[in-house]
Structures are given as C-alpha cells and as structure tokens.
C-alpha cells in the first residue's frame, strides 16, 4: 500500500503540473509569470531525470542523491525568483507601491536572513559542524535539513509578508497570482514545520512521515495552481449608491463644533 501511495504522490503532481503548463500557455499566463513557468518546467524535468535514474537502478543510490541535491538547489533558487515575481506583479499593477514595496521586500529579506542564519548556526549538529565532519551520508543529510529549514524560513516569511502587505494596503489579487502565492505559501508553511521537526526527529519512521507530508502538500499545491488557472477571473460587481450628503455635512459640523469647544 505504502509504495503505491508513494509512487502516486511522486508521479501524479508532476503529471498535473504538465496540465498547469498547458493551461498557462493556453491562457497566455506564462508571459505574466515567466519565472513560475520556468519553475513548473524545471520541476517536471527534474522529476523526469530522477524517475529515469530510479527506474534504471531501481534504488535510490548515490547518483540519484547527487541529481536530487542539484535539482533541489536549482528549484529553491527559482522559487525565490517566483516570489520576487509576485512582488513585482504588485509593483507593476500599483506604481505607488514601488517605493514602500521594494523597501519591504529588502527589509524582510534581510531580517529573515538574519533569523534563518541564526537558527542554522544554533541548530543541533549545526551546519558548520556538519561540514567540518562531512564524511558520512547522515551528516550531509543533516546539513541539507538545516539549510532546507533556513530556506523555508525565508520563503515562508517572504510569502506571508506579501500576504500581510497586500491585506494592509487592501490590494486585490488577480486570481492567477493569488493561486500561485497560495500554493507556494501552503507548501512553504508545511515545509517549514517538517524541516524544523526533521532536525529533532531523525528516525526513519519520522522521515517517511515527513516525506509523505511534503509530497501530499505538493500535490495539493499543484491542484491549487490548476484550480486558480481554470477558474475564470472574477470581475468585481459594484452597485452605485449615492452618498448621504446631508448626513456627512451634519456630522462634519457637529464634529467641528465639538472639537472647537
């Protein structure tokens, strides 16, 4: 049962991601979000390579691990670009936001970087220690987990700051952008929790559980992306209501009189 579920959670999201790419091209969304398009393309390519290695050897050997780590590093870098693309999407739609938006993006990045580096240094069997004694596979794995945690803190923090920022400024999201951010945000949140726990619960049983959680969340994210690409863009419906002129003037006079007393 577990191998079937494992293969399903490994293969299905990438097949669906192919559908996401198709929808993006068909709806011309790939021009608005080229980095996300690149991310989805990269994820599928990475999957194809890893799956081929896995099938050829039928085990997860050293070749597989190397390909996985390279793929993970590139995928993480592209995900940062996708997040910045979402920020840029808002700057483009609301030119007045460019100044405060860039300040927020840079400020949040620096703050999160400090937190992430601080936590990486203080992690059990810290990354620095692990690198100096990096002779075994387990130490490499622990280093990867520590780095993974630092990266997810950054990504989760940036995405949450984007959501809080848009909420404070009462900005409306285009459904495609919202779908991308929601999927990435959900994935980053779950990854943050699992990457934090991996450093303390390192037995195989726990690792299998964390792997399944991440894979299931990724599957969910791909479904979210697909849903928001399929859903039609909602146009706001407004009804004209004349403002109560008399009320406003009366209140203004009353307030002025009250303050001038």
């Amino acid at each position, binding site marked *: 049962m577990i191998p079937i579920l494992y293969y399903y959670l490994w293969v299905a999201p990438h097949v669906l991601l192919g559908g996401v790419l198709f929808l993006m091209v068909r709806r011309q969304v790939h021009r608005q979000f080229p980095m996300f398009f690149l991310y989805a393309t990269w994820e599928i390519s990475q999957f194809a390579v890893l799956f081929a290695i896995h099938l050829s050897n039928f085990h997860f050997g050293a070749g597989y691990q190397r390909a996985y780590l390279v793929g993970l590093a590139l995928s993480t870098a592209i995900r940062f670009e996708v997040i910045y693309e979402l920020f840029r999407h808002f700057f483009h739609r*609301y*030119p*007045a*936001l460019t100044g*405060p938006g860039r300040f927020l993006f840079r400020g949040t990045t620096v703050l999160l970087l400090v937190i992430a580096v601080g*936590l990486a240094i*203080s992690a059990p069997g810290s990354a620095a220690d692990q690198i100096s004694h990096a002779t075994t596979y387990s130490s490499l794995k622990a280093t990867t987990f520590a780095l993974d*945690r630092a990266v997810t*803190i950054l990504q*989760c923090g940036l995405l*949450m700051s984007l*959501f*809080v920022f848009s*909420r*404070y*400024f*009462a*900005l*409306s*999201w285009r*459904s495609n952008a*919202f779908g991308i951010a*929601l999927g990435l*945000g*959900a994935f*980053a*949140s*779950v990854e*943050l*929790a699992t990457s*934090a*726990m991996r*450093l*303390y619960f390192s037995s195989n049983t726990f690792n299998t559980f964390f792997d399944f959680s991440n894979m299931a969340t990724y599957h969910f994210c791909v479904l979210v992306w697909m849903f928001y690409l399929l859903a039609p863009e*909602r*146009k*706001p*419906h*407004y*009804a*004209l*209501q*004349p*403002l*109560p*002129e008399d*009320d*406003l003037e009366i*209140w*203004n006079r009353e*307030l*002025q009189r009250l*303050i*001038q007393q």
Partner: protein
Amino acid sequence: MTITLILVCVALLALVLLLSLAKGQASSPKVLENPREHIRSVDVEAFRNLMDPDEKEFLRTRLRPAEFRKIQRERLRAAADYVSCAAGNAAVLLRLGEAARRSPDPATVAAADKLVDNAIRLRFYAFQALARLYVGMLLPGVRVSPVRIAESYEQMTRLVVLLGCLQYPTRGVSAALLAD
C-alpha cells in the same frame, strides 16, 4: 526544541492565515456592495487642529506638566482615530477606484488610477503616522507632525469628487461611484 515548537506554531499560523485569505478571496467583498456604509466622515480641519504645534505650545504654557501630558495623550489618541478612519476610507476608495479602472472612458480610468495611487499613499503615510502618534502617546513631549496625511486625504477626496463627476455628470458632486 523550543525553536522547533515556535517554528511549527508559526507554520500553523501561516496556514490559518492562508486559509482565511483563500476564503476571503472566494467571497465577494461586502464593502463594494454598498460602499456608503463603509465610508465614515473625517474632518480634516479637526485633525489639523489636533496636530497644530501652536495649539500644543499654547496648552504646554497654560497647563501643569502632568495635566498637559494627559491632555496631549488624549489629543493624540483622537488624532490616531482620525488617521485610522481616513485609512479605512482609503481602503474602500481604493477598491472603488480599482473597479473604475475597468471603465471604457479614458478620463475615468485616469482619475481612477490617480485615486488608487493616492489611496495607497495615504495608507502608507497612515502606517507611519500611527506609529509616530503611538510613540507620541508614550512620550507626549515628542514632536509629531503627520500633516502630510491631511494633505493626502484632501487630495484624494478631490479625486473622488472628480471621478464621480466624470462617471455621472448629471448627478453632481456627491454621486458615488461605479456600476458594472
């Protein structure tokens, strides 16, 4: 272990935030169904009066220090309420402006763009001004002068009027905005 627990809690909070946002995105914003109910009147002159440094100096010379601090705190609290109110109105106007951007009339679109820009600026200034006003409440002697808020609010109000006139020239200045 404490750090792990904190990070897990942060991750859970982030998920809750995402869920609430997804729910909010799915439902139609009530503010837009009847914007009148959500726009509250803000008296710019009253706000300027509260922020007037001469007025402050006058109170400082007339009142005992303890009394002055108490009064100044009250004045700043009221000013903060005004700013919050103006910022709330800006949020409503921003949404209305965004809808007006879909108008086929280029003049309406231009006015709506300007309204959106001013509403965003006002919310940005309001964020800074509120921070300064709250600091002022803690330290009533500190000089705070968020007069830019008043200017920005006045400018935005003029734009709303312009937008109303462009869309509904026959209804006069007080006509509210937007139809589909």
